[in-house]
Structures are given as structure tokens and as C-alpha cells.
């Protein structure tokens, strides 16, 4: 063993490697992405790793490996599980041979997600066990145990960290390489009664699964990561009856422990590491003798409902407080300040005094914006310019380009989920046929979930223009490769899957690839596309500024500049600033994309080699 400073996701990945994982598949999504990237970086010869085209593919690839006796890990963010829910719900009935861990990162807040859905509910819904780590160290150890449980019980298991575990760093104890387990897959053994799902098999296995989960509830009551911490009350004095309890899991448990000090009425604590199957007998031991319990958890009241159920089932006279009783917030993440407030009122403590500072001057808000030089800005601006004055709808999608909604671009009218914009545009067109319908989709999202929507549009004779924002990477999640990049996570260089060829193969007649930074050509292409019938596509192709060397920063000739601020008002590039009343370009941010130069009415912007002052 040795100590390393690891991000939670890296700890999970290193734990999986130490458990001898043979195959890892996933789709990028904050806050889960670094887990698979770390596997790719540290994998042993035993491990195959891939970014799959979407979460459904990843889940099925991992299932196939686990059918063959391999240890498999599949990674995604919570909304990705919605995409993978079809294989998930059937896989539950079939089961696996090799250990299979489904890593799903939840995002209370939400900080970088569309929803605050709770994967613990997916765990109940799919009847699969769920592991919920409360620290980076525990995540490292627990994922190794999750593989053991999965293999022992022949079922996939969920591993569900939240953002504050995934993205926390901690100095933790990790195994040396010679301590790693090496797992050998024994191969796929044909057995149609096991691997082919039929109604009869599902009925038989359903009964077995329900019985297994009752058994697991008992097993989990003895599992060391579930625990009653300080049965007599943490920090409690001898002979003092403990009447109050706190139940928590994940980061909420860590925040709770950080906030307790040697108070007289210190509570008993239930740590829940497996919210499903719930450790019922352990919970009974926790509840016995208590008058009141406060449940501190994020997202849905999962632990709270279990405790209410158990209290009823065992006729325990205890009040359970939490989200359902209005004692804790129903949405958002648990901050240290919130948890402190919950504990103050539950334990009757005097809140710590706040520093009495006067209100500060207004602090500028900093909403995230498209980077300086981002080609998406040029693409949006080209469509906006070409369609000025026309009745339009601009359906957006998931990626950096969702930021095209910000002023002054204001070019995202809808955003729902991966690939949805293509179909929403069709629905709007059906309702308002005189609307020029546009859907914007990134290159990675195109491969993940846009192709079927375009086939739907062509088959059903919709009228729309698809704008593919091809920046040659999966930018939002940190530049992962995808089928169009010609690189894999195993480091191979492979042939690129052509977006243009796919679109032509579907039957689109208007498919043009244009550099959006050439503004006139880009505007012209959009105008021509919008005037044609049927489904048209423009591929705006220009690489993400973060993956290529920038061009020389542009400067503004102050003698020519008339101060009209058109460059600022039209495109909102963070590289253009006002210093002492003069419009200037920040040389540290400008990538020399040239978009602003093309719309300056007096041609004051250019590469002049000056310092921009």
C-alpha cells in the first residue's frame, strides 16, 4: 500500500483496476468522465477500455463481457442511465457471470446536468443492489467489494457516487501493483436457458431476484460499510440515554460527521452505504430506543422512506424527519452550511455566530460562456444572420453549444436531452409548417443519438435544416475521442466514421461542409439550405479551440475604430473587452478566429502584430 492524492473518479478507476477489471465501457458525462479516462491511463494488460457511442452501447458491451466471465465496468452520468435503461431492465432478469459494476454518477444541485434524478431509485426499479460511497477512500475500497458481491450473486450492481465524491480529491491508501487481483474470463458458454430472455425465464428469475434481495438485506446488515456509529451516541456522556439519531449516506454522512462536536445530546448515527437492498436489521438496531431521527440525504427521500417503513413494520415509536416532513430541503445539494443548520435545529444547538460583514459592492456574475474563438459562436451567428426576419425555431441540444442560448447570440430556443432537438424541430414544424425549423447538434451527440431522429425526419417527409457543429471532439466533458475522430481509448488510429457519408446514406440531398469562420460562405450556405425542400444538413466544421494551437491574436486599430461596439453587441466574445472606454482585444484570450474582423464595419480589426493597445 502507498498514499496518493486522487480525485474520487480516479480512485474508483484505480479500485476497479485493482479488482482485475477486464473491460470498461462508457460514455462521457459530468461528473463521471474521469473514471474511464483514468482506467485508460493506468490499465494493465488485462484491461480493454472504450468510449462507446452512447450509454446503451456501453451497457450492452459490458453485459456481453460479463456473460463471458469477464469483470466489466460501465460508466455514465445519471441521465446516461436513461439511455441505457432498456438493456438495464432486462439484464436484471438475465444476470451475469463475471462481476459487472454499473457506475452511475449522480449530480445533486444539479451542477452540470439536466435533472436531479436519483439513481438509488433506478436501483429499486431494476432490483439491483446499490453501493453509495461516502468518501474517496471508501470509493476506492468499495468498488472492489462491489465486484465481489456482483460475482457472488450473479447480478450487475450499481455503484453510485455523487459529484462531491467524484470530484473531491483526497490523500488515500491505494494498493501497489503486486497486490492487484488478476481476473481471467473463462469465456462465453452457450446456454439458451440462461442467456436468452423469454417470458418463462423472466418469471422464474423474478422470483429468485426477490428472494435474493431479501437475503441481501440481511447480508448488508452485517456488511461493515453499513454501520451504527456510536450506538450510545457519538460524543455522548456515559449513562445518558440516547434519544436522537441521524441517518445519512454518501457525502451527507461526511458533512454530518464534520459538523458534530462534543455536544451533550450527541446523536446515534446510521451510516447507509447500500441504500438497496436496505440493511433492515441494522436499521432496527439503530431505531430501537430513539424518539426522533433526522435523515440527511440528497435527491430523493430514499433512506427516509425506508426508515418510516421499518418503523411501521416493527411498531417502533419513533418520528422520522427529513424531506417528507419539510425538515430538510427537497431539491439541491447539501452544503456544509445547510447541514449545520439542520443539525442546529434538530439537536437544539445555538447556531454559530456569523461574521458581521456589511453588504459588499455588487460582484459581477460570471455565467459560463462559449470560449473566445469558439467556432460554435460563428456557426450560430451565421444562422442568425441568414435567417434574420424569418419565422424560425432553433432547437438546441446537449453540449458546449447549449451556451449559444446566452445573449447576445440567443440562438437556443429548446434544449431537452441528447439528440432531442432533431425530433422537437419536427414536432414544431408539424404544428407550424410555416416555421423554418433548425436543429443544432454536436458531432459526438450526432453519433450518440441524432441519427435515428434524422432518419425519422427523412422517412416522414419533414422540412428542416440540421446544423452539425463538428468541432472534432467531445468538448464539454473534456475532449474525449468519438467515432468521427479516428482515435480510440486504446490508443489506436482508426478510420473516421464520416458524418457526411452517413447523412448522404440516409438520403439527404443537401449536405454541405463549411468552415463557420468564413462568415460569408457560412451565411450563404444557410440561406441556400433554408430555401430548399425536405431535410437538409450543413456540417460546420472547425476544431475546438482547446485542441489546436491558436492563431496569432488580433488587434484593434484604435485610429480606425469608431467605437460602435458592433463586435461586442453582435457576438459577445469574451476576448473583446473595454479598457478605459476603448474596445480592445485581450491577447491572452484571442485565438485569432477572425469572426469579429469580418463584421467590423470599418475594418479596424486585424492581425497587425501590435499589442492591441
Amino acid at each position, binding site marked *: 500500500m502507498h498514499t496518493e492524492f486522487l480525485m474520487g473518479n480516479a480512485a474508483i478507476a484505480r479500485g476497479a483496476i485493482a479488482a482485475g477489471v477486464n473491460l470498461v465501457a462508457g460514455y462521457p458525462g459530468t461528473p463521471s468522465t474521469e473514471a474511464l479516462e483514468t482506467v485508460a491511463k493506468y490499465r494493465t494488460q488485462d484491461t480493454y477500455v472504450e468510449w462507446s457511442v452512447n450509454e446503451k452501447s456501453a451497457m450492452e458491451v459490458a453485459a456481453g463481457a460479463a456473460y463471458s466471465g469477464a469483470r466489466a465496468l460501465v460508466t455514465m452520468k445519471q441521465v446516461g442511465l436513461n439511455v441505457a435503461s432498456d438493456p438495464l431492465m432486462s439484464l436484471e432478469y438475465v444476470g451475469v457471470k463475471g462481476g459487472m459494476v454499473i457506475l452511475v454518477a449522480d449530480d445533486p444541485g444539479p451542477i452540470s446536468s439536466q435533472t436531479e434524478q436519483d439513481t438509488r431509485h433506478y436501483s429499486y426499479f431494476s432490483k439491483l443492489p446499490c453501493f453509495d460511497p461516502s468518501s474517496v477512500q471508501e470509493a476506492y475500497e468499495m468498488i472492489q467489494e462491489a465486484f465481489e458481491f456482483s460475482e457472488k450473486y450473479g447480478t450487475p450492481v450499481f455503484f453510485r457516487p455523487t459529484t462531491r465524491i467524484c470530484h473531491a*480529491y483526497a490523500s488515500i491508501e491505494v494498493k501497489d501493483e503486486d497486490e492487484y487481483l488478476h481476473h481471467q474470463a473463462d469465456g462465453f458458454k452457450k446456454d439458451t436457458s440462461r442467456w436468452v430472455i423469454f417470458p418463462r425465464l423472466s418469471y422464474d428469475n423474478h422470483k429468485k431476484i426477490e428472494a435474493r434481495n431479501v437475503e441481501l438485506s440481511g447480508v448488508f446488515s452485517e456488511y461493515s460499510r453499513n454501520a451504527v456509529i456510536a450506538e450510545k451516541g457519538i460524543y455522548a456522556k456515559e449513562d445518558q440515554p440516547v434519544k436522537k439519531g441521524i441517518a445519512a449516506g454518501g457525502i451527507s454522512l461526511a458533512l454530518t460527521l464534520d459538523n458534530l462536536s462534543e455536544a451533550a445530546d450527541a446523536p446515534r448515527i446510521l451510516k447507509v452505504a447500500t441504500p438497496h437492498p436496505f440493511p433492515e436489521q441494522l436499521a432496527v438496531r439503530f431505531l430501537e430506543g430513539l424518539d426522533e431521527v433526522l435523515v440527511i440525504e440528497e435527491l430523493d427521500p430514499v433512506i427516509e422512506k425506508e426508515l418510516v417503513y421499518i418503523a411501521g413494520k416493527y411498531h417502533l415509536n419513533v418520528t422520522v424527519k427529513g424531506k417528507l416532513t419539510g425538515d430538510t430541503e427537497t431539491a439541491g445539494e447539501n452544503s456544509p452550511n445547510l447541514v449545520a443548520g439542520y443539525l442546529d435545529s434538530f439537536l437544539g444547538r445555538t447556531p454559530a455566530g456569523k461574521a458581521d460583514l456589511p453588504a*459588499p459592492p455588487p460582484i459581477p456574475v*460570471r455565467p459560463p460562456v462559449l470560449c473566445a474563438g469558439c467556432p460554435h459562436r460563428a456557426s450560430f451567428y451565421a444562422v442568425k444572420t441568414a435567417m434574420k426576419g424569418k419565422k424560425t425555431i432553433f432547437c438546441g441540444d446537449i453540449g458546449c453549444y447549449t451556451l449559444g442560448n446566452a445573449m447576445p447570440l440567443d440562438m437556443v430556443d429548446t434544449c431537452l436531452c441528447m439528440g432531442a432537438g432533431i425530433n422537437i424541430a419536427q414536432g414544431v414544424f408539424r404544428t407550424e409548417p410555416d416555421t423554418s425549423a433548425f436543429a443544432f447538434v454536436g458531432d459526438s451527440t450526432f453519433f450518440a443519438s441524432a441519427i435515428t431522429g434524422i432518419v425519422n425526419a427523412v422517412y416522414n417527409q419533414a422540412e428542416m435544416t440540421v446544423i452539425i457543429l463538428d468541432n472534432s471532439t467531445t468538448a464539454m466533458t473534456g475532449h474525449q475521442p468519438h467515432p468521427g475522430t479516428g482515435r480510440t481509448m486504446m490508443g489506436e488510429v482508426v478510420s473516421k466514421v464520416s458524418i457526411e457519408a452517413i447523412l448522404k446514406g440516409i438520403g439527404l440531398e443537401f449536405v454541405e461542409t463549411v468552415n463557420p469562420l468564413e462568415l460569408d460562405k457560412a451565411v450563404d450556405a444557410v440561406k441556400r439550405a433554408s430555401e430548399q425542400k425536405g431535410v437538409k444538413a450543413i456540417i460546420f466544421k472547425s476544431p475546438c479551440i482547446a485542441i489546436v494551437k491558436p492563431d496569432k491574436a488580433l488587434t484593434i486599430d484604435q485610429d480606425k475604430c469608431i467605437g460602435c461596439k458592433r463586435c461586442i453587441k453582435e457576438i459577445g466574445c469574451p476576448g473583446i473587452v473595454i479598457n478605459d472606454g476603448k474596445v480592445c482585444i485581450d491577447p491572452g484570450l484571442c485565438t485569432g478566429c477572425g469572426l469579429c474582423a469580418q463584421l467590423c464595419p470599418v475594418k479596424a480589426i486585424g492581425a497587425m502584430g501590435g499589442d492591441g493597445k
Partner: protein
Amino acid sequence: MSNTVNKNIVLCGVGGQGTVLASKLIAAAAMEKGLRVMSAETIGMAQRGGNVFSNLRIGDSMHAPLLQSGQADVILGFEPGETVRMLHYLKPGGTVITNCRPVKPTTATLTGSSYDGTEMIAYLRENLAPEKLLVVDGQAAIDELGSPRILNMVLLGAAIRTGEIGLTEDDIKKAMDRLIKPAFMEMNLKAFGFYRA
């Protein structure tokens, strides 16, 4: 649990200013001394020009990486407005080290806001004891050293020399040896030593 003194540090600024590396260097230096470290950072969409922060905790008696208001021993601010935004984390008697040069957000440019950071520095001076506030002109260092990428080292050096972080210049330099590419070492060392109060 232990009598090791906890240090809680908040680093804050704007995406791209290098707060993460500064945080990593403090963590690595503390670990080298056998101390436990936890941190939490802004990752993802907010990094695109948004405000970023890092909570860093050093010591033994902690469970979560996140800080409550009034718990930070030190706030190391890379941008004056962001320093003020995070000031609620400072514990009574805590120390603030801040850059005085603003990063103007795109929204401020669009709305014609007059934000220039001076109002933030004035607010800090009004509300902190003089010996608990160190204002560093990061731009002066950038201009003199000729690189916009060394702001983090300038501020880290200034912060370490206050003694409030509990680590020495040598502790950090050893960590730099391990975490910074040799080609960038000379520039980073110069920046680290640049500001002397």
C-alpha cells in the same frame, strides 16, 4: 482523533487562472510532510469563464472536503471580485491574500458595467485588519515576467511567505519539482519568488 492542526484554505478565481495547480502544489507539499489532505474543486461547465473555487483541507480530523462559512484560515483570491464573493468562508482572524487586478466578465462588457476591481479592494481594506490582508498586483508580475500564465505562482509565493498556510517555500519548491515540467520550472520559480511584502 489527532492533535494535528487543521488548515482550511479557499482558493478562488476565474476559470483559466490556474487555481487548480496552486491547490495541487499545496496538497502535494502537505502530503510530503505526512499530512492528510482533502480538496474540492469546480469542474465542468462552470470552468468556461465562470467563477471557480477550491476548498483545501489539511490535517486529520475531517471527513468531507467542503468548508462551511467561517472556517477558512486563508483565502487566496486570484481575482478581487471573486475574493469578496468567497469572503464569507473566512474565519474570524483569518488571512486574505488577493490579486487586485480584475477579470471583466463578458456580461460586464455587454452591459457597460464599470467594474474594475478597485471597489472590491476598498471593501476588503474596510473590513479586514491591515495585517490580515495582503494585496498583490498580479499584472505587475505578468508584465515584468512576460507571461500571463504565472499568476498562480506569484500569488502562491506571496501566500506561503505570510506563514499562514503552515508550509515553507522549500516545501512548495519540492512539490513543484515533481508536478511542473522542467521546461517551465525556471519561469515558475521566478514567479513564485516574485512578490516580497
